[in-house]
């Protein structure tokens, strides 16, 4: 089937303003969902689900969260890791205090805590912008990291100082804890990520998304057309941190099954920022591309040489990843500052007019 929009006339504005106005795109999304919900669970082994798909989805969600703030609203944040941490610790406290409520509800609810903290550290955006604001988010990063280590109440006074994920069931099926299968956890993560991506896409395509982008592109002009900058920025902090918080809670409860504060260190913030950059600032689909590239590249680097019989030390593989990722970031910025998502768009455009060049 050709990728064409010819003959797809829109007879009303609602149809033209749909998120995917082109039929082929809608079919594509449906196919991806079928693969994700049916094919992967059928063929997937533990390795595929647990080592690749679950983390890929979680990182994608965190990247979407950061993208809403940095890519759509233009506020650079270096505190993503800490905001994810707030979600994880909030979820632990919630499920400890109310053990009988469904864990998935708490995973989502923990996003609100992270939201509140995000707004708190977003308050300086009233006065400061750009790099200066990035330093404010660094304050959040280091302060929260310190809290995660220094306040034993947060990790339930566990001897190791780490979050230990308790067993929680949903209709008799273990959802979290050591006995939960990777399939259950995968489906839970997938559902949350799909739903939240859909919501994010609704937000950015509507009034709020336009307000965010106005602030990003030209904040003074945005103010003069009646957008209240401070509120808009805080809303971006709130929504973004919500996404990061949920991603953090999922990371600990549905992937690691237990984690120390280090997981939410500044390195995590940078990693997610890179995903956003490589994927493309201000695109949701780019968040998935970026997450795939940055998360899966190291795994590939570990596995592929081994398959060809070239032994490569795990440490060397990791260092090589750093070199390659670093170089890739620069190459991407040089070749296409708008990231993988832009390449994707160009590809689609080419396909649309194929076989003609223009």
């Amino acid at each position, binding site marked *: 089937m050709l990728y064409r929009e010819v003959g797809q006339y829109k007879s009303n504005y609602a149809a033209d303003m749909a998120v995917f106005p082109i039929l082929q795109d809608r079919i594509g999304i449906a196919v991806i969902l079928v693969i994700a919900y049916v094919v992967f669970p059928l063929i997937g082994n533990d390795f595929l689900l647990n080592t690749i798909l679950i983390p890929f989805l979680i990182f994608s969600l965190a990247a979407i969260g950061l993208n809403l703030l940095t890519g759509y609203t233009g506020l650079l944040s270096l505190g993503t890791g800490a905001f994810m941490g707030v979600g994880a610790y909030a979820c632990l406290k919630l499920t400890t205090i109310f053990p009988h409520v469904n864990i998935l509800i708490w995973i989502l609810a923990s996003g609100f805590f992270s939201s509140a903290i995000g707004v708190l550290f977003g308050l300086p955006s009233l006065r400061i912008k750009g790099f200066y604001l990035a330093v404010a988010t660094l304050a959040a990063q280091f302060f929260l990291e310190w809290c995660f280590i220094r306040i034993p109440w947060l990790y339930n006074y566990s001897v190791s100082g780490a979050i230990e994920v308790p067993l929680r069931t949903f209709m008799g099926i273990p959802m979290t804890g050591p006995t939960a299968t990777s399939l259950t956890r995968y489906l839970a993560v997938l559902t949350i990520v799909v739903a939240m991506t859909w919501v994010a896409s609704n937000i950015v395509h509507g*009034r709020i998304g336009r307000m965010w982008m106005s602030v990003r592109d030209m904040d003074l002009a945005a103010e003069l057309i009646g957008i209240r900058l401070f509120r808009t920025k805080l809303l971006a902090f709130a929504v973004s941190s919500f996404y990061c918080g949920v991603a953090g809670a999922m990371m600990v409860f549905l992937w690691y099954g237990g984690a120390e504060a280090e997981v939410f260190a500044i390195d995590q913030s940078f990693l997610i920022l890179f995903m956003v950059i490589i994927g493309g600032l201000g695109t949701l689909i780019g968040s998935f591309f970026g997450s795939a590239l940055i998360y899966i590249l190291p795994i590939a680097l570990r596995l592929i040489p081994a398959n060809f019989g070239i032994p490569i030390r795990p440490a060397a593989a990791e260092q090589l990843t750093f070199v390659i990722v670093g170089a890739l970031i620069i190459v991407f910025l040089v070749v296409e500052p708008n990231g993988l998502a832009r390449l994707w768009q160009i590809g689609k455009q080419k396909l649309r007019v194929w076989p003609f060049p223009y």
Partner: protein
Amino acid sequence: MRAPSSNETALGEVLLAVEEVSLSFGGVRALTGVSFDIRKGEIRAIIGPNGAGKTSMLNVVNGFYQPQSGRITFKGNVRNSMRPYAAARGGIARTFQNLALFRGMTTLDNILAGRALKMHRGFFWQLLRYGPALQEEVEHRRRVEEIIDFLEIAAIRKVQVGRLPYGLQKRVELGRALAMEPDLLLLDEPMAGMNLEEKEDMSRFIIDVNQQYGTTIALIEHDMGVVMDLSDRVVVLDYGRKIADGTPDEVKRDKDVIRAYLGETH
């Protein structure tokens, strides 16, 4: 300063009046005791040599700069200074000398963004993009499409504005200001850098806006021909002071104005 001319009585009531406005930046005086008014339905030009304080004046009117002294009366409300949000809310829209478009957004989104004040559907509906939120989007889209038709930019509806040529960007910016359905439209050099044809188009749009929608317009422009043809009344600034105020013909004959423009020495 000359006495008010007789034809002012024919004009509408005062929409905006600035009185004795002074503005300085750390010792540099940008405006000194400037007073003038803008009446409902007119096209008012602000002219003057470079650095005369014209843009500063517009910035004071829509609240981007806070003057150190003076009063601003808008729609009967007297205040010492405007705030950008209050100005937008009160119906003052604005275009900029150096373009202040949202470059990463499409033409459509830019103009839709101009409807920000008129869209109210809550956060919850926005999350779902369904029901009232979608309905609202469609309603405003309809209104925006009228503006797009009016400005003849339908072909670039879905193009990112950062990639458009300058003249079209100017038009999109005008579109965004019109989307606010303003009572007072401030245009800062709407024709700067345009060729003759583009200038003619832009003049036509300005006149149409003024006549079709009854929008009051205040504009800064360097092209004297355009100013004299378009405007009902002209205020002339030089070194931050008002040196003349009146109809184009009156201003053209004013000695101070001639001196300011030609640098005549005595």
